[in-house]
């Protein structure tokens, strides 16, 4: 369900219409523009992207390198500000929030999984998993915590430090960390980019499980058609615009679409 908004809207006007549209999206972008630099060096990474990410779904974002996938994700996650347009996480309009507001939003509503595992080497696996809750000063829900640990299969590794874990294990710790605070939405930027295919498959399967079993919302940027096939929906970006989308994709369908995009780009 793509929200297509035509023309240049004044932000005030869009806010009204955006708030009225309660689509049940976990996060939404409304006519988002992101322009880097100015003058000669101006690069428009996003050009009027409008997209809603459904709750309890697994969405993949694909596209050629430089198409704006990471930028879109950062804007949706409250890591980066948009040049124009609006971003909602849940029902909260995050455009215009200050650093403190965005930080708290990320802490309470958003989970992250990065390509490069990004665990704190000074903490054990368990402490890393509980870190977002500690930062927020919240007590973990024991039952949920146990469920997460069992799902990622790390019970016997909890006391280990990141350096004592394999890349796949570290990424599973990162997944558990993102899940344990039950965020509204989890963003993952190429989570399997640094893993071999088996570890990658484990992580992807685990992410899909958390969507199916626990109703978690996940948004994943990937270059890998096979990885994208784990998702419920694939959005294709090219030159900062959404150009296509697939539902219940298969790896072949994703590959075909990618090929089409490439030829389109070649023709253009």
């Amino acid at each position, binding site marked *: 369900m793509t929200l297509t908004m035509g023309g240049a809207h004044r932000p005030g006007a869009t806010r009204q219409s955006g708030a009225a549209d309660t689509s049940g999206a976990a996060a939404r972008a409304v006519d988002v523009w992101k322009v880097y630099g100015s003058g000669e060096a101006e690069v428009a990474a996003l050009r009027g992207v409008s997209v809603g990410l459904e709750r309890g779904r697994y969405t993949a974002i694909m596209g050629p390198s430089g198409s704006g996938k990471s930028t879109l994700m*950062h804007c949706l*996650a409250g*890591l*980066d500000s948009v040049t124009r347009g609006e971003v909602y996480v849940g029902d909260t309009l995050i455009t215009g929030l200050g*650093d*403190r507001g965005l*930080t*708290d939003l*990320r*802490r*309470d509503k958003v*989970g*992250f999984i*990065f390509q*490069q595992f*990004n665990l*704190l*080497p*000074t*903490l054990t696996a368990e402490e890393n998993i509980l*870190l*977002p809750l*500690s*930062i*927020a*000063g919240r007590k973990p829900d024991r039952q949920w915590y146990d469920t997460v640990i069992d799902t990622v299969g790390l019970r016997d590794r909890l006391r280990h430090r990141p350096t004592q874990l394999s890349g796949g294990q570290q990424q599973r710790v990162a997944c558990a*960390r993102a899940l344990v605070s039950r965020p509204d939405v989890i963003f993952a930027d190429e989570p399997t980019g640094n893993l071999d295919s088996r570890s990658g498959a484990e992580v992807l399967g685990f992410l899909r499980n958390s969507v199916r079993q626990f109703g978690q919302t996940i948004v994943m940027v990937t270059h890998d058609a096979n990885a994208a096939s784990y998702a419920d929906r694939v959005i294709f970006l090219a030159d900062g615009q959404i150009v296509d989308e697939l539902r219940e994709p298969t790896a072949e369908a994703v590959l075909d679409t990618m090929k089409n995009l490439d030829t389109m780009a070649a023709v253009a």
Partner: protein
Amino acid sequence: MLRATFKSLLSRKLRLLLSGLAVVLAVMFVSGAFILSDTLGRTFDSLFTNAYDYTDIQVQAKPKVDGGGDGGAVPANIQSTVVGKVAAVPGVAKATGTVAAEGARVVGRNGKVVGGAGGAPRFGINWTGEDQLISLREGRGPQASGEVALNAGLAKIGNFKVGEQVGVLTLEPKKTFTVVGIFGYAGGRDSIGGEQTVAFTEPVAQQLMLGATGVYNVIDVKVADKRDLTKVRDALRAEVGPSYQVDTGADLAKKQSDQIKKALSFVTYILLGFAAVALLVGVFLILNTFSIIVAQRTQELALLRAMGASRRQMIGSVLLEASLIGVVSWLVGLGLGVGIGSGGAFALAKLTGIDDVAGVGVPPAAWIVSFVVGVGVTILAALLPAFQASRVPPVAAMRQAGTADRPLTKLTAAGGVLAAGGGGALAFGLSGKAHDNTIWWVVGGVFVTFIAVALLTPLLGRPVVSVLGRLFAWSVAGKLGRRNSARNPRRTAITAAAMMISIALVTGISTIFTSVSSSVSKIVDQQVQADLIISGQQTSAIPPAIDPVALARVRALSTVDAVAGQAYGAAMIGGKSQFVAAFDDQAAAARILKLKPKIGRVDRLGAGEMVVDEATAKGRGWTIGDQVTIQLPRGEPRQLRVVGTYPSGPGAGGILLSWPDATAGFRTSTAVQAYVKLRPGAVTTAAKGEVDRILADSPEVNVATREEWLGNQTQIFDIVLTIVQVLLGVAMLIAVLGIVNTLVLSVLERTRELGMLRAIGLRRGQVMRMVTVESVVISLFGSLLGIAVGAGLGAAVVRALKDKGITELSLPWGLMVGYVVAGAFVGVVAAIIPAIRAARLDVLKAIAYE
């Protein structure tokens, strides 16, 4: 890419700058010390050259007693017959007997000595009329015994006018004179070097300044032909013999200038001490910076090695960088050194009343020593990291970048061996088996132990830091900061070591001085039974005197039980200078100062008798009944008989003479200090008021209650302690730089981590707290270790001084608590910049940071 390179270069620049600052400080102090003493030297050289410009030759009698500390040598008198003998020597055109002695103190309108304590000398001279050097500005020279002329400098400070009455303290108590003239010096100067001069008529000058009429202390000689100056000087030497000193004006200028320079050399030593501390701490800082840079560039270095760079090239590149920092810091430091050196010289000269300060100049010694300090030490400190760099294996290029800590075994082993050695030396020293060498064993042990602790810091760091960190573990930010500080024990330790060294130094010195101070005050407190003490502040070569008439009136007070007036000075005994004292009422002194005889008697002393404390008696090999030859500043040598000995102690000690011998032989025949015992039931404050009124005409002396006086006795220690605290300030400043350095690096290294933490919701404030906790844990670790080491080693030295009467071990608790607080404060201050940097981090860039 370019941006990233530029950024990393910039961040490294900051770090290099920080470590360079330590070198800058050290160079500044070293060159400042040299420039200061050079500038002062040239100032005094020209000053005395001016002063003796019109002097051909002077003949003086050699002092009978060496200077040996108190107030310098007492000038010996020259009989007037000698003047004739000198005048008869071929080549001498004119010989004039003159009086020119230090110690004429003019009392100002406020009843105090003009110019206060310290400062330029105060001369009393005989008026010999105007000459090339001296000319009258107003009035005339003194002609009657009640008249004086003042130099213009003195007249200006005291605002004295011709016709006015002034009080003057000399060898005798205050006498009043009429000012009849004001004189200046050649070149329109008010004084030659800020000094005060009072000119009396000849007999008055002789009596008041030399203690006898018909004598001089200087014969001023004018030669017939200047070219024969040295010839005439040598002829004069042959004529007057070895008990006289014959010098040309140039000789005298040099002698006096050298003497003053020596007296002022303490300032140079203080600056050099600061330089030493700055350097000691600075070495750690440089070592740390370069180790960090090398560790950070491991991959880059490995790549270079893989591409075929030789080990020598690697060492060379690190050392080149060090030399660059060294040279730049040296130049900056030298510039600052010129500032504090000439500024300090100017201030000191002004303080002594000198207006013509020599111009700025950098002596060769300042160039050379500061270069060695700045560049040499920087390179030396970078040597170890340079070798580390050369040992990076090429395969490291393929590995994940990570600064895994090398094991601490080598360092620990070295530290352990040194600790054992130092501990052994300490134990041996303290066991008393080393006898006379005790203090050397202990000091050596302290030094070695100190180095051992520095080496063991990384090992100690782990447990201590983990315990300390628990203090802050109540918040996530605190917990994370605590973990971070335990992350690189080696780096934490080197950073903390700078702090440790500075705090250990001051704690050690403070412990020793507090112990000495409390030992002294305890002993004095036990020994001195006086209720009031009359004593004065020395403002010239002549000690402050209590007017005997005033003292007699104090004795006569109904509330006063007994008074023991004391005089003291230097004497020559067996060719050595020795401090001797005497009381005007020996029985009262024995009672008030608790002098108990060991053998013989100590409460009665007739002329020709003396008592001595046991240690001195033992050292000199005297027993009861021995005859001892003593030369006092005035008169011929005396034969004194030892009639008693008493136990030694720092409270009272040394040789006590009879009052008649002392008044005949000392420079002044009055008491310098007096102990007053009140009758039972007398009110101390009321009695003090009465005594105060009686002493109104003795401007240099004051009466103090026992408590006030005891406080004053330990004042000198307070001054030393203050200097030590300033030293700490300098060292702390450098320690701060070290911590900033380490933290900036840590923040840089952990950019990615910080980005992740910010991404998952750590607030800016929490990030800042995290960095601050890390900083505070490091600096607290350093200060606590420093306090422990300093107090321990200071206590060892105090124990070793037990024989010397330092029986009390008192730790400077207040200061120690202060140091911990200062340590925590330093941690917070050091964290400011790194914390802001960490908080300002752009989350997106941090995540993408490679």
